[in-house]
């Protein structure tokens, strides 16, 4: 199979790879997809798909620490990072506990999943578009870099991504700072109606209604909106788009308007009638039991299977180049039978076009290991994430958290504004799962009540109901700017058992982002005072990502939004891919994934990345014609 020459060879069966595979096969091209994870994870026949997913569920139920990667197999032959491996870095000695070799000074706190379907298996599913000013940060605020693509240009591809992922939201709710009336196309509606906002959101909204917060002498009026989410809700009967399809005349991918277009929610891969609606399992991270939440297997299932060959347990390790033409001739991969055994066979995949879609860190790793696409010396650099700063406290009355999707509302006020000249922008999601993330609630509450407060019986019940049911978690996702020193590197001293490199990560947070955390804490204090929330937030030097700004300590958490490691740009001198998503150095090598994004803005990156994946697929089809 490997010696067959494909129109395109794609590495990685996550959302980026799946979108390109689906789009190319539907346009009639023959595609080979290489995937590092286990064969079982790509079963689409109903019984097998169900059986495999239930094995993830069972692993989840039995895991003591229900972290994002808890349900999924951790393969020795294709390891994944795990947040359980995080701790503060001591001095200059790298922390080699987990898959990442953490050089610091701050440990990189996010993970991803190397399993078929990729990290969308455990993503939350928040699907906000980036704002127009996010694409021109340098021009407007003198920070970071501009994108070589504008919001206006990307808009039609956002519509493709919103259909593919199946986003639920009401356009009328989506009010953001500094965006004009034409942010959404005229008459545009999301495929499904908004996900109902939680009871907790409603109580919180009441508490902050009309509130003005002061930040450094400026006043901002707070407002709360519902969050667009990639999970199934009630189809919007005004939605009338189908596609995208390849339009020969214009040489573009286009969505077609059709009056009898209906959006059908895409259910579980083992049964289309399961997961037609979010059922409130409150477990989107790490696993949605009914697949009401989007994952990339849904896209892959709808690729044209007669045009698609998939090889699993295939870890791409090298991009081979013809030195005279600079074109990619093949991708070398290591095929293993048993994920725990170091044995493998070396195989090659040949094609006309090659696409790396192995996730931002793994893409950078493959490029660096192959010594390709790096004439700019930017591969692996500019690693960004959202710094998740959390504040938590007890509401004056019960709001009943631990129900519904992880977050159903957000405060968008600080996503854009002149303050971006001085400190980072941030979005403020309101979380639905109590103190679970920062404090391992309700387990910690139970343990304290039983072991320290010596409560039992009815008194114990009353105490937990009185306190845990009042837990509120606020969440600030702070933008990080591209910095060349924040980077993924390779070091032959750190290899996995197949002889592939482990990512060596050097990482820090600049004052521009630290200042945003300080502003966030200040805003949180004002909100807590207004609503009467008893503050339980606590940041300790023993936390993995603890930092000091202006003499005050803050802790942040990783968001899982790994961006920037092979960024696009205007010129080959300072970027890895062009606006076509093609590497400047090798004309038949395309990259997809969040690594292409030059800046991160304040939206969770996957929707934008999915839009860019359609954009890349369009350029690839044009090339293949």
């Amino acid at each position, binding site marked *: 199979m490997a010696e067959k020459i494909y129109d395109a060879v794609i590495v990685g069966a996550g959302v980026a790879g799946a979108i390109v595979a689906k789009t190319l096969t539907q346009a009639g091209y023959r595609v080979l997809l290489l995937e590092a994870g286990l064969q079982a994870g790509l079963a689409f026949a109903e019984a097998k798909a169900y059986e495999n997913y239930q094995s993830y569920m069972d692993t989840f139920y039995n895991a*003591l620490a*229900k972290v994002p990667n808890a349900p999924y197999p951790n393969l020795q032959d294709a390891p994944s990072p795990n947040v359980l491996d995080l701790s503060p870095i001591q001095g200059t000695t790298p922390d080699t506990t987990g898959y990442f070799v953490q050089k610091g000074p701050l440990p990189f706190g996010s993970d991803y999943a190397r399993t078929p379907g990729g990290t969308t298996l455990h993503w939350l599913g928040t699907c906000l578009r980036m704002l127009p000013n996010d694409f021109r940060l340098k021009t407007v605020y003198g920070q970071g870099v501009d994108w070589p693509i504008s919001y206006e240009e990307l808009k039609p591809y956002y519509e493709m991504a919103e259909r593919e992922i199946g986003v639920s939201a009401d356009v009328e709710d989506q009010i953001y700072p500094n965006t004009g009336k034409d942010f959404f196309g005229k008459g545009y509606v999301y495929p499904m109606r908004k996900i109902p906002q939680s009871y907790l959101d409603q109580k919180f909204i009441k508490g902050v209604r009309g509130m003005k917060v002061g930040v450094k002498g400026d006043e901002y009026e707070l407002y709360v909106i519902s969050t667009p989410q990639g999970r199934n809700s009630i189809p919007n009967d005004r939605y009338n788009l189908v596609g995208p399809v390849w339009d020969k005349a214009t040489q573009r991918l286009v969505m077609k308007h059709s009056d009898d277009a209906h959006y059908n929610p895409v259910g579980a891969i083992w049964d289309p009638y399961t997961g037609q609606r979010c059922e*409130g399992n409150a477990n989107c991270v790490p696993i949605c039991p009914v697949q009401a939440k989007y994952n990339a297997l849904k896209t892959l299932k709808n690729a044209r299977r007669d045009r698609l060959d998939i090889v699993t347990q295939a870890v791409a390790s090298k991009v081979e180049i013809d030195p005279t033409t600079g074109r990619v001739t093949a991708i070398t991969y290591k095929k293993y039978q048993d994920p725990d055994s170091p044995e493998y066979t070396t195989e090659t995949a040949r094609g006309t076009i090659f696409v790396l879609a192995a996730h931002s860190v793994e893409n950078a790793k493959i490029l660096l290991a192959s010594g390709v696409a790096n004439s700019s010396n930017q591969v692996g650099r500019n690693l960004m994430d959202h710094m998740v700063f959390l504040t938590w406290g007890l509401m004056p009355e019960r709001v009943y958290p631990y129900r519904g999707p992880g977050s159903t509302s957000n405060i968008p006020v600080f996503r854009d504004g002149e303050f971006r000249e001085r400190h980072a922008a941030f979005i403020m999601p309101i979380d639905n799962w109590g103190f679970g993330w920062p404090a391992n609630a309700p387990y910690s509450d139970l343990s304290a009540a039983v072991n320290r407060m010596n409560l039992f019986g009815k008194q114990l019940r009353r105490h937990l109901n009185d306190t845990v049911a009042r837990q509120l978690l606020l969440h600030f996702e702070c933008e990080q700017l591209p910095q060349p020193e924040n980077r993924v590197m390779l070091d032959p001293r750190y290899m996995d058992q197949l002889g592939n490199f482990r990512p060596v990560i050097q990482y820090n947070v600049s004052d521009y982002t630290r200042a945003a955390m300080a502003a966030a804490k200040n805003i949180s204090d004002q909100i807590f005072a207004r609503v009467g929330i008893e503050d339980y937030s606590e940041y300790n030097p023993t936390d993995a990502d603890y930092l000091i700004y202006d003499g005050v300590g803050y802790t942040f958490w990783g968001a899982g939004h790994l961006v920037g490691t092979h960024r696009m740009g205007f010129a080959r001198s300072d970027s890895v891919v062009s606006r076509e998503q093609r590497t400047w150095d090798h004309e038949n090598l395309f990259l997809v994934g969040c690594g292409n994004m030059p800046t991160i803005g304040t939206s969770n990156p996957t929707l934008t990345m999915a839009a860019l994946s359609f954009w890349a697929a369009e350029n690839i089809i044009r090339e293949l014609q």
Partner: protein
Amino acid sequence: MKKEQYSIEPFLDLSAILTGFERVDLLGTGMVDIYYDEVVNVVGKATSRELWETTAQIIERSGKDGRKFETAIRREILASAKFGPIARNIIQMWYTGIWNELPQSWRDLYGTSPDDTTRIISSEAYQQGLVWEVIEAHPPAAKQPGFASWSYRPSGDKH
């Protein structure tokens, strides 16, 4: 395996007073036999029998309701060096499906079992955790309440 009525009854009564749930609620989880076995297996037959006997004696003396019963449970079981840690584990087991390793001081005095490790007893145990009902939610990834349920109070009214 059919449990001796004598042992299961005091275990169930003890579980009810410790957790604050009715016997019928505990029976409804389907976990009674499993948790009983768990305790006996980890702390041993002799110690567990002593605990059931002590419980039975308390009930004989003070009945199963009211302050008197609660006080006796606190004094003779929760405050006991031997029974206290087991009783606190029984509460947490019912609430979360987790068996917690007993404190080292207890293990030093009363023995260690290879099964005395912190772990989730089973998938079913996790899904039957009572803490979720106490906070009027449901175990994440199980017993899902349905579309839009989270936008109402758990009792079903909007405000």
